[in-house]
């Protein structure tokens, strides 16, 4: 069956509501996505009928809960092409997943002065500040790829930036501001030459197109449930098993241990080693249901739809006088996230006028302040799309921008 956006929208209860007297036009999915009833129902069923703590009891509720939780892990593993479910570690969000690597792989790599970590100027703060702190703790140096005027990763200095001092490279698979999709192939090849690890911040890619970790050839990826139709409170770190099994724990506590005495503790193998305490059980199960939903529709279908919407949006926005788009101007190698400025109007004001019309966009630095600085603006307005976005919603955005220009004209 072919992709039918009207049918998809029926699964999302929130589209029944109005905002400020207008039908909701939700163009902020890069910030957080809406959730289909299928995901909410699975979570509710877990909470109402099968709630028990995982991996700790022989009782029926605990066993059911454990099977649902581990089942979600297995389905998420196959969704991203992981070698085994044991490579999937549940965290609370992408941010925790990246911090986990910054601490645990940082310790594993025994970083010291002279070593280098490489990121890029287009990173979300969550893939930037953890590395700054790691460098502070260890004396290593942080370096970064720049951004071209077109909003692409500037790989022209690749061989100099990634060199024999480089221990780890971590970049966004897709920029949450510019929409740019980065192909990590050359970067991975270079990192392999110098023996550096590669992490991809896949927070914006895994929700929107098929990602296969083995095909990518990287060592770690991080992504987050609430951006892919799942609940808040759940994220994923995927890592190569061989690497994970060498890494020391990060958070410590119940369930990550093998045996404990007051004097000494030994640790469970991954993934348990990295899941201290009671995990976000219902949330992991919810993310499993989200993956089922996405798979049911088909990631390729979703990507195709978003490409169409993006092409349409780029066109419509380019036609609004005074609008400047930051990032790739064509839908090639870019996703459905479009940031722009309106001449003479501050993004806060753009967002406010749009909200009055029911159009929900994000304004600000989008947790990626260096990107704004790169383009010499304090803030941007961003419209971002998903499988439920329609061309009518893009039209509403364009009409809203006319209104913005009227108010601040």
């Amino acid at each position, binding site marked *: 069956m072919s992709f039918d956006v009207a049918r998809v929208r029926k699964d999302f209860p929130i589209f029944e509501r109005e905002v400020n007297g207008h039908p909701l036009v939700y163009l902020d999915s890069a910030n957080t996505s809406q959730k289909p009833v299928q995901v909410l129902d699975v979570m509710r069923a877990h909470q109402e009928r099968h709630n028990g703590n995982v991996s700790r009891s022989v009782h029926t509720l605990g066993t059911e809960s454990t099977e649902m939780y581990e089942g979600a892990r297995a389905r998420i593993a196959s969704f991203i092409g992981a070698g085994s479910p044991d490579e999937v570690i549940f965290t609370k969000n992408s941010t925790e997943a990246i911090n986990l690597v910054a601490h645990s792989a940082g310790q594993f790599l025994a970083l010291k002065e002279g070593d280098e970590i490489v990121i890029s100027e287009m990173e979300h703060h969550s893939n930037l500040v953890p590395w700054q702190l790691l460098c502070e703790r260890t004396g290593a140096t942080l370096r970064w790829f720049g951004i071209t005027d077109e909003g692409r990763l500037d790989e022209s200095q690749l061989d100099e930036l990634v060199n024999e001092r480089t221990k780890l490279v971590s970049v966004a698979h897709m920029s949450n501001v510019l929409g740019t999709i980065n192909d990590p192939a050359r970067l991975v090849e270079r990192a392999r030459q110098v023996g550096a690890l590669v992490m991809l911040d896949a927070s914006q890619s895994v929700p929107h197109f098929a990602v296969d970790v083995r095909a990518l050839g990287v060592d770690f990826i991080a992504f987050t449930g609430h951006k892919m139709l799942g609940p808040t409170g759940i994220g994923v770190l995927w890592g190569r098993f061989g690497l994970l099994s060498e890494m020391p724990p990060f958070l410590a506590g119940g369930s990550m241990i093998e045996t404990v005495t007051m004097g000494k503790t030994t640790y469970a193998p991954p993934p348990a080693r990295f899941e201290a305490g009671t995990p976000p059980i219902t949330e992991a199960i919810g993310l499993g249901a989200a993956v089922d939903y996405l798979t049911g529709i088909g990631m390729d279908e979703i990507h195709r739809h978003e490409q169409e919407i993006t092409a349409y949006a780029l066109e419509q926005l380019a036609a609004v006088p005074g609008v400047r788009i930051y990032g790739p101007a064509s839908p090639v190698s870019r996703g459905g996230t479009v940031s722009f400025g309106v001449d003479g109007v*501050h*993004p*806060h*004001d753009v967002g*406010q*006028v749009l909200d009055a019309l029911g159009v929900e966009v994000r304004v*600000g630095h989008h947790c990626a302040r260096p990107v704004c600085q790169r383009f010499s603006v*304090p*803030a941007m307005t961003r419209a971002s799309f998903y499988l439920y976005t329609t061309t009518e919603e893009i039209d509403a955005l364009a009409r809203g921008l006319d209104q913005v220009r009227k108010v*601040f004209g």
Partner: protein
Amino acid sequence: MLDGLYQEIILDHYKHPHGRGLREQFDGEAHHVNPTCGDEITVRVNADMSDISYDGLGCSISQASASVLHELLEGKDSATIAEVHRAFVELMQSRGAVEPDEDVLGDGIAFAGVAKFPARVKCALLPWMAFKDAAARAGVEVGASPEVKA
């Protein structure tokens, strides 16, 4: 709906700000940033409040608020400054429950509508908080305004 927020007075102050631009002579300076939206403001004051200068980047609300602040506080005695400052902060934190007094707040009453938009309250307050810090650094206590969260 928007009318409550974008009063003509606010748009006027935004498009034609009063007293904008930093001056070199000052006794206290403060630079404040709104971490969510990246808006920034720098405020400079003389100890006798004969000069209040400012510059910044920001939305219509924060820029208009700075302009109104300049108009209301420059050259006033410290009792008046404390009273106006307190009244403005109180208005902004009232969620619309306080009726503003035009005798005290002048053009500032146009911000009554902003109080109903929690996300914008911090825009309106940004210059006032920076002013308070700048005044403190110039040795003038503007009074214990309630804590404002970023």
